[in-house]
């Protein structure tokens, strides 16, 4: 993308321009407004990290205790193992991506390659509404419709409670669908037209063109879309908390309740007192979530440096 911002000037004037730029008041003021986001990141990092490590320095809980699979904060001696939550978060996220990817990439292909104008005019606004549905509404749907349905109709399959890993992932898969779809759509739409016409001119069918030309050219972008969807899934709190049953043990099966980092923070934060080890463990979970999401950003940045097609 061309940077249309700077006005072309001859290079001999560069010296005087930088002087003018330095005195440019609007430039300085608008810069201050933009730089607020840097300040916000620094503040956020500082506060979450500071509170996240208090369990080691203030409550003197050893690292080995935190890095275990045993969560029993009210026992004595108390156990603050956070692996059940990390495993739950990653598990729920992974299954959601598995369910959502075929649907959302399929929908993106449909909108970009197949849908006639009128169908596109329905699908696109529908995606915008879809992405806007609040997380509590998804959770409420899950708890009033999905969970009872699983309990009544699929208890033979092991859904005795309905609250389960599967229920959480299913709700999440719908929530991340518009994210993956819209980004994949943008990527597919930027695949040059010539590549399609070239393939069609060689006698390929539309499906062969999609399968062997469009999708390979868009792979990196689609992977980015899926990763961004997974990032959203990992950080989602309320909808997941409402349907997964919140059992703080290592995940045992798709039909069993489990817990995640976000849902445990949501549930316990209000019931614990600042300064006690239990409360500080929740902040540590917050720090872990922050690290997970920053890792996703790093990964996406790496991906976007790769060229998707030459």
């Amino acid at each position: 993308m061309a940077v249309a911002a700077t006005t072309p000037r001859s290079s001999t004037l560069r010296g005087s321009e930088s002087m003018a730029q330095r005195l440019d008041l609007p430039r300085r003021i608008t810069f201050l407004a933009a730089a607020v986001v840097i300040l916000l990141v620094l503040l956020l990092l500082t506060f979450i990290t500071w509170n996240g490590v208090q369990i080691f320095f203030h409550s003197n809980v050893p690292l080995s205790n935190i890095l275990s699979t045993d969560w029993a904060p009210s026992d004595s001696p108390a156990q603050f193992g956070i692996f059940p939550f990390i495993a739950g978060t990653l598990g729920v996220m992974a299954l959601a991506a598995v369910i959502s990817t075929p649907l959302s990439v399929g929908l993106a292909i449909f909108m970009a390659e197949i849908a006639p104008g009128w169908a596109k005019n329905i699908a696109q606004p529908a995606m915008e509404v879809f992405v806007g549905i609040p997380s509590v509404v998804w959770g409420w749907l899950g708890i009033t419709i999905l969970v009872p349905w699983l309990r009544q109709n699929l208890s033979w399959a092991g859904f005795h409670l309905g609250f389960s890993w599967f229920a959480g992932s299913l709700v999440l898969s719908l929530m991340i669908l518009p994210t993956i779809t819209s980004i994949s759509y943008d990527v597919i739409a930027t695949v040059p037209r010539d590549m399609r016409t070239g393939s069609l001119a060689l006698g390929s069918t539309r499906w062969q063109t999609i399968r062997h030309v469009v999708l390979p050219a868009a792979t990196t972008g689609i992977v980015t879309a899926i990763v961004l969807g997974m990032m959203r899934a990992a950080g989602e709190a309320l909808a997941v908390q409402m349907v997964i049953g919140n059992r703080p043990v290592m995940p045992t099966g798709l039909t069993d309740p489990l817990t995640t980092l976000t849902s445990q923070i949501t549930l316990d934060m209000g019931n614990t007192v600042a300064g006690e080890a239990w409360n500080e463990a929740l902040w540590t979970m917050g720090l872990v979530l922050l690290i997970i999401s920053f890792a996703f950003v790093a990964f996406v940045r790496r991906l976007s440096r790769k060229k998707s097609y030459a």
Partner: protein
Amino acid sequence: MTRSLVWDRVATGVFWAIGVFVVLVLGAIILHFLLASIGTLSLDFLTSDPSRTELGGVGPILWNSFYILVLTMLITVPLGTIGGIYMAEYAGDGRIPNLIRLSQELISSVPSIVVGLFGLALFVTALGWSFSALSGAMALTVFNLPLMMRLSEQAMRAVPQDERDASLALGSTKWQTVRHVVLPLAVPGIITGIILTAGRIFGEAAALIFTAGLSTPMHYDFTNFDLTDPQSPWSPFHPATTLSVYIWKLNSEGLGNYVRQIADTSAAILVIAVLLFNLGARTLGSVLHRRTTGSR
């Protein structure tokens, strides 16, 4: 028919099925809430006080939702638009602008519950604003500011370079060009961005639980205009449970006979709000586009 043609037909059918399925799911969700709210959703429900024993309304809670929305927008829109001007017109490609872009990406990646924790640590505890509308609005600002900034940057980048060149050729300064040429042309895009951000803020809950508070307001005295009094609904320091937080709270407490009805109807209000925000963004965007460009 050859094999490849058969597969082409099959693939086309599958893609159509996916498209129809997703749109039907969305339609079913909207229809479900509209049906579930019939009989409860009324002007009285929207304005009356919550009640512990009978079917109560959401008046004060809805007030809080709008209060926090307006407060957040008052901070986010000016700051985001001005920041967007820098990113689109002045920044270029240097180290600092790239640092700003990285910061935008990082903040948008942070889960809203973590933003809630940050708000709890900074606004509620360190700054001593306690659980209040102001703390909530600031937490929402944290993750909506980068979004607003990016949307307004995009709106300004979409303005053709010719417009700038023409203005500069007439002897305008850079800032005059930005102020009188670029900004007016970008207004439709910025407004669309504002409405979409507003929709997000209206539905947000996770970041508000630990910042704006969880106590259900039973009754508000709207004649109390003392802005420093946390009892006054006008005060930025009043604890402000919003509609989304209220649904979550109803579910986690599960008390009362009418929980299902109240939460269904509240969810319906949120869904209708999402539809209205989207519709508003679309119509206003196209109307303003016609106004500013003179095209029909």
